[in-house]
C-alpha cells in the first residue's frame, strides 16, 4: 500500500488514494497494529526465532542434558548424532567439544551469555548515545557542537582496534567486554537520536509545552522521548546485533569472554582450529550466532516497518 501512495508521489492521485485507504484501514489502532505485525513475515520469523533463543537461555538449566562445565577428556569430540561415527551417542545429541563437554548444554548456556553481552552492551551504549543525542538535538547551539565533536571523535576511532587494545591491556572478562563494547558503539544512537529530537523539537506540542512553562526535564522525558522511541527500538536491535558480532570477533582473536563460560563467539573461537577437520564444531555455534543476529535484525527491521511505515527503507 505504501508503494501506491509513494509512486504516485505528490500528485492528486496520491492524496485521493491515501485518504481513501485511511478510511478503510484505520478502524482501530490496535487491530491495525496486530494486522501489521502478523502480516510482516520478517517480523514474525525474527520474533519467533528470538523467542526460541530466549527460551533456550531462560530454561537452560531445565532443558539441558548436562552441566556446561562438566568435562571428561575421555569422551571429547564426539560428533553430533547425524554424523556417521561409532562414537555418536544420544547422550550428546550435538556431540561434545574439545574437553568432552556436552555441546548442546553449552549452546543453551551460551545463549545466556551472548544475549547478556548484546543486551548489556546495547543498554550502556543506548544510555550514552541517547543522552548525548537528545541533549544535542534539544538544546542545539553549543551543546550540539560539543556533542557533534564527541561523536566525530568517536567515529574516527577504529572500533575493533580500540576494543582489542583496551581489552588486551585491562585483561578480558565478561564485564570488561560488555563495558568496552558499550562505551564504543553508542555513536549510532547519538546520531539518530539527535536528528530525531531535532525533528520532534520543532513540532507544535513541544512548543506548546514550552509555552506552558513545563520544565526541560519534563519536556524531554514526557514529550520528546515517547516520540523518538520508535527510532530507539530500531537502533537498539541493530546495536545489540552489532555487539554480539563484535564480541565474537574479539573472541576469535582470543580477547573475548573468558572460558569456561560458553558464549557462542567463544565456542566458535575455541573450535576454529577444527574447521578443516570437524566443521560441525564451528558450524553449530556459528549457525546459532547467525540465527540470533539475523532474528534480531529481522525484528528490528520489522519493528521499523510496523511502527513507522513512512520511514521504511
Amino acid at each position, binding site marked *: 500500500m505504501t508503494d501506491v501512495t509513494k509512486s504516485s508521489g505528490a500528485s492528486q492521485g496520491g492524496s485521493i488514494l491515501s485518504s481513501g485507504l485511511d478510511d478503510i484501514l484505520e478502524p482501530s489502532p490496535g487491530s491495525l497494529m496486530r494486522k501489521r505485525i502478523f502480516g510482516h513475515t520478517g517480523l514474525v520469523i525474527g520474533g519467533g526465532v528470538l523467542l526460541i533463543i530466549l527460551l533456550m537461555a531462560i530454561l537452560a538449566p531445565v532443558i539441558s542434558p548436562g552441566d556446561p562445565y562438566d568435562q571428561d577428556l575421555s569422551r571429547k569430540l564426539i560428533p553430533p548424532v547425524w554424523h556417521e561415527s561409532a562414537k555418536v551417542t544420544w547422550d550428546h545429541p550435538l556431540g561434545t567439544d574439545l574437553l568432552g563437554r556436552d555441546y548442546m548444554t553449552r549452546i543453551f548456556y551460551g545463549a545466556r551469555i551472548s544475549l547478556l553481552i548484546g543486551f548489556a552492551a546495547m543498554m550502556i551504549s543506548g544510555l550514552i548515545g541517547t543522552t548525548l543525542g537528545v541533549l544535542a538535538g534539544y538544546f542545539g547551539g553549543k551543546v550540539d557542537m560539543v556533542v557533534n565533536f564527541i561523536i566525530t571523535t568517536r567515529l574516527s576511532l577504529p572500533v575493533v582496534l580500540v576494543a582489542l587494545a583496551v581489552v588486551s591491556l585491562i585483561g*578480558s572478562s565478561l564485564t570488561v567486554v560488555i563495558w568496552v563494547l558499550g562505551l564504543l558503539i553508542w555513536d549510532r544512537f547519538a546520531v539518530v537520536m539527535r536528528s530525531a529530537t531535532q525533528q520532534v523539537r520543532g513540532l507544535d506540542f513541544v512548543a506548546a509545552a514550552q509555552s506552558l512553562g513545563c520544565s526541560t526535564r519534563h519536556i524531554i522525558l514526557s514529550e520528546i522521548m515517547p516520540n523518538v522511541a520508535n527510532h530507539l527500538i530500531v537502533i537498539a536491535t541493530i546495536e545489540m546485533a552489532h555487539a554480539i558480532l563484535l564480541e565474537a570477533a574479539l573472541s576469535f582473536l582470543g580477547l573475548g569472554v573468558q572460558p569456561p563460560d560458553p558464549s557462542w563467539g567463544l565456542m566458535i573461537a575455541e573450535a576454529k*582450529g577444527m574447521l578443516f577437520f570437524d566443521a560441525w564444531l564451528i558450524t553449530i555455534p556459528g549457525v546459532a550466532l547467525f540465527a540470533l543476529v539475523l532474528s534480531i535484525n529481522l525484528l528490528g527491521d520489522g519493528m521499523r516497518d510496523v511502527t513507522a511505515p513512512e520511514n521504511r527503507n
Partner: protein
Amino acid sequence: MKTKLHRLATVAVTAGLAVGLTWGAPVEAGKADDTLNWSTNREIAVVDPYYNNTRELVIMGHMGWDGLVLRDLDSGEIKPLLATSWAWAGDTAIELELRDDVVFHDGSAFDADDVVYTLNHVSNKDNGVLTFRNVSWIKNAEKLASHKVRINLHKPFPPAFAYLSNAVFILPSGHYDNAPILAEGKPDYGAVKPVGTGPYKVTDVKAGEYVLMEKNENYFSGSTKGKPQIGKMRFRTLTEMNTQIAELMTGGLDWIWDVPKDQAERMESAPTVTIENAKTFRVSYMAFDVDGDSGTDVFTNKKVRQAVSHAINRESIAKNLVGPASEVIHSACHPDQFGCDQNVTKYDYDPAKAKSLLAEAGYPDGFEFDIYAYRQREFTEAVIGDLAKVGVKANLHFMQYRALRDIVRRGETPINHMTWGSYSIPDVSAIVSHFFTHGPEDPAKDPKTKELLDVADNSVEPDTRKLYYTQAFERIASEAYWLPMFTYAKYYAFSKDLNFKATSDEIPRFYTATWN
C-alpha cells in the same frame, strides 16, 4: 560532466589493471624449486640472534651463524664447531683454539678478532642486547693468538658450554660499527645486515613478512653441522593456524609446528603430510601464592596446595590434550635437563584425597579463587574442570603473556598456570634457579630452597650440584610451592617430500633437512 566521470573511470580501470599485472604470478613452492617454506605465527623484523629474542631467531641463528661449539643432541656431548678444542683455565676462564679455514658470508676470514669483538660487544650491558641473560655470565674475551681466545667469566658458571652452543653466535669483527643511528642518537644495532659463517646466508628480509635464506656454497667442510642440502629456505609469518594448515595441505608450505593435537591427529591421514610429536624443554606448571600476597590466603595453607595437586588429572591432560610425547613431571624441571631428579614427593590424581585434605584444611565445601594463564587456554580449562569436581571454583583470567608476567611479578595471582621453556638450556639452573632464588617470580621466597640452590648454582662439581638440586626439588615438591604439571610436546607437520627429524630441544635443524 559525463566526460569527466568517464575519464575518471578509465583512469581507475587502467590503474587497476596495471596493479594487477605488475603484481605477478604466485610463487611456486616446495621441492620443485628447491625451497623449503616454513612458517610460524611470529613476525620477524630483525634478523639478528642478539637483538631478537624469539625462538625463530634461535632457529635461524643455527642456520645463518655458528657458535664456538655444538652440543650433540643424542649424547649431550659438546662437539667442536668454530672452536677445535677448549679447556677450562680455572673456574672462571675458558681457553679455545679456533678453526682457521672458515670465511664469513661477506668473504672475510674468521679469526680470534671476530670472537673477541662479538663476545665483548654482546656482554656489554650498554649495547642493549635483548638476549642478555644468555651472555651475562661472560665478563670479556681476550685474543691469545690469531686463532686462540680466552673467555673470562664473572663467576663460576657450570652450564657455560650449554649456552655457548645454543645462544652465542659469532659475528664478524666490527659488525655493529656502522649501525644506523636513530633519531634519539642511539645506534640501531638490529638494523645491520646479517652476516655469519653458518650453512645458510640471509638473502632477503621483508620485516614482518618473510626471511629468505640461501645455501652457503662455501660452508666449511668438516663442520659438525654437515653440508647444507636444500637450496633455499623461506620463512613466512602466518599467525592463523588454520591458514598454516591450509597452506601445508595445498603445498604452499613444507613445514609447520605447534599444531594442536586434535588437528595433528586428523592430518595424519592426509597423504601428503607427515606428523611428528616431539619433546620440548617447555614444562607446564602451576605456582601457588604461598605467601598470600594476592589477597587470598587459602594457598598459604599447605594442605590446600596439596589438595589442589591431587585434584588435577595431569595424566589425562598430557595424554588427551598435549600429545604422546608429553609426560607428567613431579619436579620443577624438565627430565632432560642436567640435574633433574623426578624422584620426589608425588601427587597422584586422587579427588577423594583432595576432598579430605580440603576438609582438613577447613574448606569442606570448597572455595572460589582466580586462576591466571596465558598459553593454551584449553589446558587451563581442563584444570578448572578438574577443580570443579572437588568443589573448588576457579575463575579464569586469560591474558597476554606480558600483562600476566607483570601481575605475577607483583605477586597478585592466587594461582598462575604458566610455562617455561628454559631457553632450551639443558641444565636445571635455567628453570629452578630462575624461580626459587627470591626473584620477583618466586612464589614462596623460601630461604631454605634458596640456600640449596645457591650451593648448586655456584659449584662446577656435577655431583655436588646434583645433590643439592635434588634436595631443592624435594623441598619444593613436599611443600607444594609449585605443581609441576607436564612437559610440552610439540606436533610438527611437514610435507612428505621433506626428510626432517624433529629434535627434543625445540630447535629444528633445517640445515640437516633434505628432499626425499
